[in-house]
Each structure stands twice: as C-alpha cells, then as structure tokens.
C-alpha cells in the first residue's frame, strides 16, 4: 500500500512561507505604527489645545507669543496650492491624455509618453528650485505685488509635477473606452470633436475623476517645492501672490528648527501630520473606490 502522506513534514517550506508572510505583513505593521504614533502625540496635543481651536482657529503661531493654534492658515495655504496646481494639471493633463489616446500616432505616443514619465520622475526639490529661480522672477516681471515667496509659483510648479500622473491615468481611462463606442458615434454622422468630447470623455468620466482626486491628494502631500517657494508665513488668505505656509512646509520647518521634543510646540508637528494623513487617506480611498468601479464597467 503506497502511502501518500508526506514522508517528512516539510518544515523548510513552512518556515519559508512564514518569512514571506512576515515580509508582506510589514505593510500592516507600518500602517499601525503610523496611526499609533500620530494618534498618541495628537491626543496628547489635544489635552492642551481644544479640537475646536485647532480646527477653526484663524491664527497659527505655535512658536512665538502670543501663541495660537488654529490650523486654518495652514489649510488655506495648502488649499491655494491645491487649487493652483489643479488649474494647471487637470486641464493640461486631460488634454495630453486626449491627444495621446485619440490623436497621436504610435510614433508620437512613443515620444511623448516617455517625456511625460521624465517629467514625473524629476525630484520635487528640483521643482522647488525651478519655482524659486524661474517662476517667481517671471511672475514678478509680469505682475505687481508678487512677493518673493508666494503660493502661485509653488502651485504652478506642483501642477507641472502632477500633470504627468493626470495624463497617464486619464489616458488609461480613455483607452478603456471600447473602440466600438467610437465607431457607433461616427456612424451617426458625428465629427471627431463630438465623438471625443460628447461620447468618449463622458464614458471615461469616473476614471478621469479618480485621476483628478489622486492628483489633488498628491498636491496636498507635496513638501519640498512649497517649502522652498511658497514661504514660511502662516497666512489665512486666498491671494496666491502672497507668502503662505502649507501644512507640509510647517512640518519641515519644525523639524529643521530647534524645537525641543516633548513640548507643546513639538506636538503641533504631529497634530498637523495627523490632519494631513487623514485628508490624503480619505482622498486616496475615494479615488481607488471610484477607479475600481470604473474598471468593472470596462473589463
């Protein structure tokens, strides 16, 4: 009677499998650590500063007297960057995607796509340099009242940085729309503009929306370009020509400075980071959910 039971327990396999599992599990550990660290220090922060003051206060001055802990100026700064970069990245990115998927020949595609990938691969600190040494002087030449550090330069540059991602995701979304749909539209006597703008883009809309949300999330989390070019002055304003400070730039400022750890000023770092993390997490979850639904339709 031949036995089909393993002659020796395959311990080697089991150990290997466990090791592999642990490697994958690190991701869970990472998330838990991030949440734990942020939560611990933020809760400690909220023991001294009320949540209402933090979320709705209009002055942010945690390091100098008179101290104030209202996050709205930092949120306003981040918002200016988001709006400015979206104005650049979303229309141009979508236009690039339309060009790539509807008009470009294979040869043109093989040139333009790598160029966009190069744009995406340039480190953010380089964009910060570009903002400070080219965009800001350029703006000051064209307009009056542009401060040396201003939100607009940083926003433009962040837009350029995020543009390739928008273009690539929208291109994917547009290419998911089946060719038969375009043919159906052409067959009732439509021109290329009508087919593209009235049929194809609307059909790809949720994929495009997901791309936009991801772009905004990226812009919110952007650090170096805004630190270099947008300023370090918390400023509750909607004027993009003024100097502001974003949430991310504040975090950099604190860590570059001599703030003693354990103090309230130090804990502001974590409170701001918690808000940043939460906002980007929610946006990413939303974008992924919409993207999945979109892919279900066209698979």
């Amino acid at each position: 009677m031949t036995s089909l039971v393993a002659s020796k327990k395959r311990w080697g396999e089991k150990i290997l499998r466990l090791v592999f599992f642990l490697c994958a599990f690190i991701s869970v550990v990472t998330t838990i650590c991030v949440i734990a660290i942020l939560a611990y220090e933020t809760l400690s922060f909220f023991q001294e500063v009320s949540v209402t003051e933090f979320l709705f206060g209009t002055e942010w001055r945690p390091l100098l007297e008179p101290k104030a802990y209202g996050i709205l100026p930092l949120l306003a700064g981040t918002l200016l960057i988001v709006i400015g970069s979206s104005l650049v990245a979303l229309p141009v990115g979508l236009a690039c995607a339309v060009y790539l998927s509807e008009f470009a020949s294979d040869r043109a595609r093989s040139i333009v796509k790598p160029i966009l990938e190069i744009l995406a691969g340039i480190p953010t600190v380089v964009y910060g340099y570009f903002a400070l040494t080219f965009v800001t002087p350029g703006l000051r030449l064209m307009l009056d009242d542009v401060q040396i550090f201003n939100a607009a330069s940083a926003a433009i540059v962040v837009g350029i940085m995020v543009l390739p991602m928008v273009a690539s995701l929208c291109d994917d979304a547009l290419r998911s729309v089946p060719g038969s749909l375009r043919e159906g539209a052409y067959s009732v006597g439509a021109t290329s503009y009508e087919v593209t703008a009235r049929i194809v883009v609307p059909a790809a809309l949720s994929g495009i929306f997901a791309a936009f949300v991801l772009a905004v999330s990226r812009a919110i989390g952007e650090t170096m370009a805004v630190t270099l070019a947008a300023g370090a002055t918390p400023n509750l304003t909607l004027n993009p020509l003024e100097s502001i400070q974003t949430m991310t730039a504040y975090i950099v400022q604190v860590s570059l400075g001599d703030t003693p750890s354990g103090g309230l000023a130090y804990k502001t770092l974590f409170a701001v980071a918690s808000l940043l993390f939460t906002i980007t997490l929610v946006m990413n979850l939303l974008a992924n959910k919409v993207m999945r639904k979109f892919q279900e339709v066209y698979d």
Partner: protein
Amino acid sequence: MKQPENAVLEARNVTIRYSGEAAVKGVSLSLFEKKITAIIGPSGCGKSTLLRSLNRMNDFIDHVTQEGEILYRNSDLYGEHVDPVEVRLHIGMVFQRPNPFPKSIYRNVAWGPTINGLSGDINERVERALKQAALWDEVKDRLDDSALNLSGGQQQRLCIARALAMEPEVILMDEPCSALDPVSTARIEDLLFELKEKYTIVIVTHNMQQASRVSDYTAFMESGVLIEYGDTDEVFTRPKQKRTEDYVTGRFG
C-alpha cells in the same frame, strides 16, 4: 439579374489592402434601391471590410489603401471634396456587437439627429425610429433609463433605432445578429422585412439560413474575391459557380 439602373451604391473593381495585404480583391457590386442584399462567405473573406468601405468607416484604420471606385448615386464616395461625416448621414451602420452609448435610451436615439441639426421635432423622430425598430412598446415608459440596462437583443434594436433616426437611405449591417440569441435574431429578421420598404439594406452575415430567408440578392465572397452575385433564390438553389455550391451546401466554411 436586374440591370444596375436603380443601383444606389456601386463598387467598381474595388481592392482594399491592410498594410499591403489585400483583403478585398477587384470586387464589383451593385446594391439596389429598397432591396436587401446579403454578403456571405467564410470568415476572413473580406465581407466586413467591403461593407465598411461603403460608409467610409475604414478611414479610421491605419495603413489601409483602396483602389477602384465606390459610387453613391453616381457620386464618388472618396472624392476629393467629399466629407465623410456627410456620407454617413446617407449611409448608416449597425455593428456586430450592440454598442449603445452609455446614456439614456432617449439620448441614444436623439444624439445623432441633435448634433446634425436634423429637421423636425426630435421627440417625434425618436418615437418613429423606436417604433420602426420594434422597440417602442418595450421602452416607451422608461426612455430615461440607461441603455445599458437593456438586454442584448433590445440593445441591438436600439442601435438599429439609432441608425434609423438619422433617416439614411442605406443601412449597412455587419453581422447584426451574431451576438444575439435565436429569439432576438428572429425578431430582427422580421424587422428587416418591414424596413426594406423604406431603406436599402446591405447585410453581412455568416448565417446562410438568414441570408436565404431575408435577402433579395446575395453576394458570395471568398478570400477577398466576389465569386458570385445574383438573386438569392438562384444563388442558393442553382448557383453558377462550384465554389458557391460547395459553400451553400455546407461542404466547407
């Protein structure tokens, strides 16, 4: 075989190549007014390619070259100043797989006429088209529903209505029933008998029973060549070419 005096569409020695490879070789064919012409043949014989050239849908494929002439009422469809968009106002198309727009049923039918600014009340036009496509009763209470909620057979009838709403003279159909179940197929075949009173129909099909049931004239193609073309009855019962006889009796293909 009638003389080509009331031929609406005419192909004269048409050769179509994809990147050098000929898919249609020297085909000459006349399509007669208010008749149904079926084009049959084994897979890859060039029938779809030929069909698509009749309303300039091959324009969208790269590396396609075409020789010969295609005339619509004696106008060269591929003439220098011809607008392909206008061609498609006269010659409509229904595709192999239903491809409704991801919009409401109403918008699907109304979209073509709206962007082309066709005359008359759009609502009437939509209703007329849906009635002609034998779909009106099933959808009249839910015109704002998404077209994607319809069944396969309903979607294809919607695509037929979409084409009819443009009031073309010719309707080209590329294997319109191949993705549908037998019941839906039968409904659409019934539809064709009614439609031919108003429209000239060219239908590509690999279903020989369908061709013999429905069409007035049948063209048999093989490997890009037009082997035989004549009255449907004759092609199926007394074919002149041996290849035709082999195909229609099922000896191959």
